[in-house]
C-alpha cells in the first residue's frame, strides 16, 4: 500500500489510482471526470481526480467544489508543469481540499512543492518521515508569494501579491 505524507503524518492510502486494481474508492482521470460530467453522472461530492503533466487544470473549474482529492502525477522527478498546475488549482481555481504529488516525488522537491500548494506527497518506499519533515522545514524565508499550504516562510515586506 502507498505511503502518503499528508500534512505532517504518514497515512496508508486507500485510494485506487487509474490503472490500479483493488477495493479502494477510484481516482478518475481528467477525461473520465469530464466524460461523466458531460453525461450528468458525476457525483455531488467526494470526487477524486488524477492529472497528467499536460492536463489543463482550468477544465476542472466547474467541479472544484465536488473534489476531495487531486493527484498531480509526476512522470519524471521535478517536472515543472506540476508546480504550475498546483499553483493554478490553489490560486485561480480556489481548490481547498487535498492536493497530492504522486508518481516520482523526491525528498529534495518537497519544500517547493509545498510552496506551490501541495499538502500531500506519495513518498518513495523507504523514505524517512523525519527527513521528509526536516526538508519541509528547511527554509524560514522566501522572496515570492505562493500558494504555501504546508509551509509559511517569512516574506520580505514590500512585494505585494
Amino acid at each position: 500500500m502507498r505511503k502518503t505524507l499528508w500534512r505532517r503524518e504518514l497515512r496508508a492510502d486507500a485510494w485506487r489510482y487509474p490503472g490500479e486494481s483493488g477495493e479502494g474508492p477510484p481516482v478518475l482521470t481528467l477525461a473520465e471526470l469530464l466524460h461523466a460530467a458531460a453525461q450528468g453522472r458525476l457525483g455531488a461530492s467526494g470526487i477524486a481526480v488524477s492529472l497528467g503533466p499536460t492536463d489543463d487544470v482550468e477544465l476542472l473549474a466547474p467541479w472544484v467544489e465536488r473534489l476531495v482529492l487531486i493527484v498531480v502525477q509526476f512522470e519524471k522527478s521535478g517536472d515543472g508543469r506540476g508546480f504550475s498546475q498546483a499553483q493554478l488549482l490553489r490560486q485561480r481555481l480556489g481548490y481547498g481540499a487535498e492536493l497530492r504529488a504522486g508518481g516520482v516525488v523526491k525528498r529534495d522537491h518537497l519544500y517547493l512543492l509545498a510552496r506551490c500548494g501541495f499538502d500531500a506527497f506519495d513518498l518513495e518506499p523507504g523514505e524517512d518521515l523525519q527527513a521528509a519533515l526536516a526538508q519541509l522545514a528547511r527554509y524560514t524565508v522566501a522572496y515570492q508569494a505562493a500558494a504555501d499550504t504546508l509551509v509559511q516562510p517569512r516574506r520580505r515586506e514590500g512585494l505585494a501579491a
Partner: protein
Amino acid sequence: MVRVYKYEPFDRTFVEERVAEFRDQTRRFLAGELSEDEFRPLRLRNGLYIQTHAPMLRVAIPYGMLSTPQLRMLAHIARHYDRDYGHFSTRQNIQFNWPKLEQVPDILAELATVEMHAIQTSGNCIRNVTTDHFAGVAADEIEDPRPWCELIRQWSTQHPEFNYLPRKFKIAVTGAAADRAVSAVHDIGVHLVRAADGAIGFEILCGGGLGRMPIIGKRIREWLPQGELLAYLEAILRVYNRHGRRDNIHRARIKVLVKSLGVAEFARQVEREYAANRAFAPRVGEAEIARLRASFTPPPYLALPDTDASAGAPAAFVAWYRHNTRAHKVSGYRAVFVSLKKHGEAPGDMTSAQMLGLADLADRHSFGEVRVTHDQNLVLADVPQQALATLHRSLAELGLATPNIGTLTDMIACPGLDFCSLANAGTIGVARQIHAQFDDLDYLYDLGEIQVKMSGCMNACGHHHVGHIGILGVDKRGEEWYQITLGGSASGQVSLGQVIGPSVPKAQVAATLAQIVEVYLERRQGADESFLQTVRRLGLAPFKERIYAEDAVAA
C-alpha cells in the same frame, strides 16, 4: 559606501539556509544516499558541473557587480580551493575549474560571508540576470537598470513555480539607448524606455537566443508600467513552463515555443495569463523600488574639470587611454576597461594575484567597485582622469593593461575542449594563435573595431553567432575544425553571422582571419567604414573568393 546590493538579515538567512541544504545534499551524495542522476539537478542548481577534469563551480556575480571584498574572496577561493585562477564568463559570472566536490559546501559558506552564492548559475531555471557594464555611468542612460536587475534576482531566486523549467532561462535588462547587454539574444530582454509623456516603463523582448537555433528576440510588449514588471514576467514564465517542449532538449528553449506559436499568438497567450493572474501576481510597491534604488546611488564624485589626460603623454599611455577608457557622464571621470585578453592567456582568465591587485586599485581609484562585462573583461567605472596615469602603470604591472579593447584580439571565447565536457574543439589554443598572428598593435588599430567571438560547440557560450567574425569549433572525425561566420553583431542593429563556407583546420584559423581582414582593408571605403559595415555592404562573396580560391590553387 559600496554600490552593490547590500544584504539585509532576510537575504543572509536565505543564503545560509541554501548553503545548509546543499551541504546536506552533497553529504548524501558522497554517502551513496543519492544517485548521480538524483544529485545532478540538485548540484546544477548550485552551479556545479562535473567536467572534463574535475567539477566546475560557477559563482554568480549578479549583473556583473562586484565589491572589492567580494573580489578578494574570489581570489581567496582561487588560491585555496582551486589552481590560483578563475575564468570570467560571458554571462558576467566566474567559473572555477578545479574545486573538489567535498569542498564545495565550504566554498559556498565562504561566499555567503561576502553576500555571494552560486544559486541557479546552471540547471533548467532562471539564471543570473545580466545588464550593461556601464549601468549608472553611461551618458545615454534613461534609468539605471540595476535596481530592476536586483528585483529580478530576488524574485527569480528559488522561485517555487519556475525552478524546473523545460530549459535554462536568461534575462537581460538594459537602461540605455545602446544595448550593451546583448539583450536581443536572451530568453527575455527587458528595456527601460521613456514614453512621449516622459514616463519610464519597459519594453519586453522574448524568444531570442543563440545555441543551435540562433534567433533575435521579438518585441512582445511595447510598454509596461514599472510596477508590473514581475507580474508580466510571471505570465511569460507560466506560459513557457506549461507549454514549452520537454521531449527534446534541443527544442526546449522558449524561442522554440515563440517560433512555433508565432510571436503574435505567443504574446496573446502571455497577455491572457497576465490578465487572468491579476489577483495573485507580484506587484512592486514604491517603497520596495526606493529601497532597491538606494543600493545604487551614485558614489561621492568630486567636482573635477574635464581634461584630456592623453595630451602630451607617452605613446603607450595614449594607446591605452584611447582604446581602454570611455567617456563618463560625470565631468572629470572616465570608465576604464581592465583587459583580460593578454597575449598568451585564455580570454577571461584572471589569477588570484591579479584579483587582489585590482581590488586594491579599485579601492584607491574607483570607489571600491569592479564590474564584469559580457565580453570577459572587467571595468573600473568611476576613475578620476587625474588618476589615469597612475592606474595605467599599476594595471600594466599586473598584466591588465593590454590596449586592445574593441580590437580583433579582444575576443570572446568559451573554455572549450580543454575544460568543458560539451565542447567539440579547443578555443584557448586558437585564441593564442590569433594573438600571435595579430601581434602588431598599430595594425590592429588600423583595422578598427572587429569583434571576434568563439565557441567550442553549438551551445554558443562564446556568442559566435553575433561576432563580426564568429568562430565555431566542430568535430570532424575526431579532429578539431572551425566554421567561420561573418556579419554578426551583438549591438545596434543586431544580426546573426553567415557561414562563409566549409570549416577550416585548426592550424588555419588565424591565417583565415588574416585573409578576411586583408579583403576588408582592400575594399573598405575609407578608414571610416568599419569592418562590419564593409561586410554588410559587400556580402560574403569577396571573402569566400579569397579564402577558398587560394585553397583550390593549393590543392
